[in-house]
C-alpha cells in the first residue's frame, strides 16, 4: 500500500515537473512566425510572378505551410523545386502532370514591338528595358522565364525561347552505360 503511494506520488511529481518545464519552454522560446513558412518562402524563386495562382511567393509559401496548396504549382522552380518542396513537406509529389521544360527566357521580336510598355509593367523582375514608344528588349540575365509578359503584348511580339547552350554553360551529359542489355544482345543475334 505504502509502496503504491510512493509510486503514484513520484510519477505525479515527475509529470508535474516536466509539464511545467515544457510549458515554460514553449512560452519562452515561442516563434512568432511559422518557421516552415519562412523556409518554404526562401526555397521559392521569389520573383513574385504569380503563376501559381497566389499573389506572390510569400502567399504561396503560406498556403504550402498550411497544406492548402499543391507542391507542383511553381512553374519557374521546375522539377527540382517540386522535389525539394515535397521533400521538405514530407509529401510525395505528383509529377505525372508536370511537363519538365527546358529553361526559357522571353524574347521580343523587335519588328513587332510598338513600345507600349505593357510588358514592362507586367515584369516582376525589371528584366525588360525600353521606354514609351521605343522598342523594348529583354535582359536575359534578369529574366527567369515566367512568361507573364507574353499574354499582355498587344502585337504578340514576345515569344519564349529556350536558353541557348553556349561554350560557357555546356557540360557533359550523363554517361550512357553501354552495359550489354538484353535488347542489345538480341540485336547482336541478328
Amino acid at each position, binding site marked *: 500500500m505504502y509502496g503504491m503511494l510512493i509510486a503514484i506520488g513520484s510519477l505525479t511529481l515527475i509529470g508535474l515537473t516536466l509539464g511545467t518545464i515544457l510549458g515554460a519552454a514553449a512560452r519562452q522560446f515561442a516563434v512568432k512566425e511559422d518557421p516552415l513558412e519562412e523556409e518554404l518562402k526562401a526555397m521559392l524563386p521569389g520573383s513574385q510572378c504569380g503563376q501559381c495562382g497566389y499573389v506572390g511567393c510569400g502567399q504561396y509559401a503560406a498556403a504550402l505551410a498550411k497544406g492548402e496548396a499543391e507542391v507542383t504549382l511553381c512553374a519557374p522552380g521546375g522539377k527540382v523545386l517540386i522535389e525539394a518542396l515535397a521533400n521538405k513537406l514530407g509529401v510525395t509529389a505528383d509529377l505525372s502532370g508536370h511537363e519538365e521544360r527546358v529553361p526559357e527566357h522571353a524574347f521580343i521580336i523587335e519588328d513587332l514591338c510598338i513600345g507600349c510598355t505593357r510588358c514592362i509593367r507586367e515584369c516582376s523582375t525589371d528584366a525588360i528595358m525600353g521606354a514609351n514608344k521605343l522598342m523594348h528588349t529583354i535582359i536575359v540575365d534578369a529574366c527567369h522565364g515566367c512568361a507573364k509578359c507574353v499574354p499582355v503584348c498587344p502585337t504578340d511580339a514576345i515569344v519564349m525561347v529556350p536558353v541557348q547552350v553556349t561554350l560557357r*554553360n555546356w*557540360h557533359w551529359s550523363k*554517361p550512357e*552505360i*553501354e552495359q550489354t542489355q538484353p535488347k542489345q544482345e538480341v540485336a547482336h543475334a541478328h
Partner: protein
Amino acid sequence: MKLFPILGGIHPEYRKELASEKAIVALPMPVALYIPLQQHIGAPAEVLVNEGDLVKKGQMIARSGGAVSSPQHAATSGRIKAVTDVTAPHPSGLPQTTIILEPDGKDEWGDLPEPITDPFTADPHAIHERVAQSGIVGMGGAAFPSAVKLNLGTQKKLEILLLNGAECEPYLTCDDRVMREYPDEIIDGARIMAHALGTARVVIAIEQNKPQAISIMTKAASAFPDVEVVGVPVQYPMGSERHLVQAITGRETPARKLTADLGVVVHNVATARAVHHAVRFGRPLVARVVTVSGGAIREPNNVMTPIGARIADLIEFCGGFSARPESIVNGGPMMGQPLASLDAPVVKGTSGILALTAEEINDRPTSACIRCGNCVTVCPCGLSPLDMAAFIRKDNLDVAAKLGVMDCFSCGSCSWVCPSHIPLVHYFNYAKGVLNDLERESRKNERIKSLAEVRIIRIEKAAEAKRAALAARKPASDAAPPSTGGEAKAATEEKANT
C-alpha cells in the same frame, strides 16, 4: 634536392617515343587562320578590327575583355576576312566568335612594343603589363592568363617560381622539345618571371623520362645559382600544379587555396619562353609548339604552329591518317578533350593533337563495379571514385558533392585503372557540370529575387508619393487623375538610369 611523395597516380604507357626525337618544324602558313576571341580562362577578348582591315604580324586584333582576360594578336600579316562564328576546339562542337585572317604570304611583323632592355632592373609592373599585352596564357593546357598569375607577387610573399616541365601526359613531347631546343630562352624567361614575382628561387621540374631535357636544362641553368633543375619521378599526374608543388616542397595546398598561398607559383616551361620573347623582343604570343601524334597519324611530329591554324591543316602536314582514328584528342590522352570537328583551330592552350586508334584507347563495354578499390588507391586527390560514381548514377548529386566530386580535377587515373571500364571521369564531369549549373541558377535566382524586391519597394514608394500628391492637391478641388502612361515612363526612365 629532397623530393616528397605524392598520393596515388598511375603509370600509363607513355608512347612519347612516337614524337620525342622529332625536332620542331614550322607549319607552312595555311590559307586562312581562325583566331577565336576566347582562348583562355576568363572573359573573351573584344574585337579591334573590321572585315577587310589589313593587319601585320603581331598586331593586336582583339583587346583584353576584363581583369581576367587576354588579348589576341594576328599570327601573320594579311587581311581580315571576317569576324564570325567558327567551330571551337571543344567537345561540344559549338561555335564561338572568331577572327578569320587571310595571310598575305609576307609574314611581316608590325610595330612591336620596345624590348625591355634590362628586365632585371625594370619595375615588375612593366613586366606584368608586357605579359598581359602580349596575350600570354598558360601553355600547359589550362590557358589561364599568365599576367594575372604574375601579379600574385604583389599580394603574397612568394618564394619559389616552379617551372613545370613534367609533361606527365602520355604522347606529348612539345615541352620536351622546347626544353631541348631552347633551354636558354626558357631560363631567361623564367628569371624574368621570378623577378616580376619577387621570388628568390626558380625550380624547373622535369619528369625523369626526359633525360636529355634534364641534362640540357641543367647545363643551361648552371650559370645561374638561383635556378635549379630537378628530375621528378615518372608518375602520372605529376604535372598537376598542386601535386608538383607537393613533390617539390612537401606541402599540401589546402582546398580552395592557391599554391601561391604556400609561396609557390607554377608556370609552364613554354610560357616562360613566351615571356622571354615578349620582354626581350616585344613579340606577342602568336605561335606555339604542338605535338601531333597517336597511332593513327602517319608522321608524328612537333610542329611550330601559328595560332589559328586549323587542326585539319596540322594533321595534313603530318601526313594525314594512317589508320582510322577512334578519337581525335585536343591535349593529352588523359585530360585532353575530344574534338568534334577538325575544322576547329589550334589555340594558345593546344599542347597536342592526337589521333588515337581504338587499340590505343583500349576502351571496353562497361561492366558492374566489383569494388576492387583500385580507383581509390590511384586517386591523387584522395577521393573515392566508385562511391561518387554510384551516387551520381542514381542522380544523388548532393551526396557526390559531399564526397568531394568538385575536388576532382578529372586526371583520369580512376577511369584508366578501372577493370570494369566504368566511365568514372565522365560521371564526374557530368556532375560538375550540373552542380555548376545549379550554382549559376541559384545565383541568378538570388539576383532575380532582389530585383523583384527592389521593384516592389519602388512601386510602393511611387504609390505613396502619389497618395501624398493626391492628398496635397485635394483641397485645391478635383484635379485630373495622373496618367498611368506617364508613371510607366517615369519607371522605365528610372530603370534606364540604374
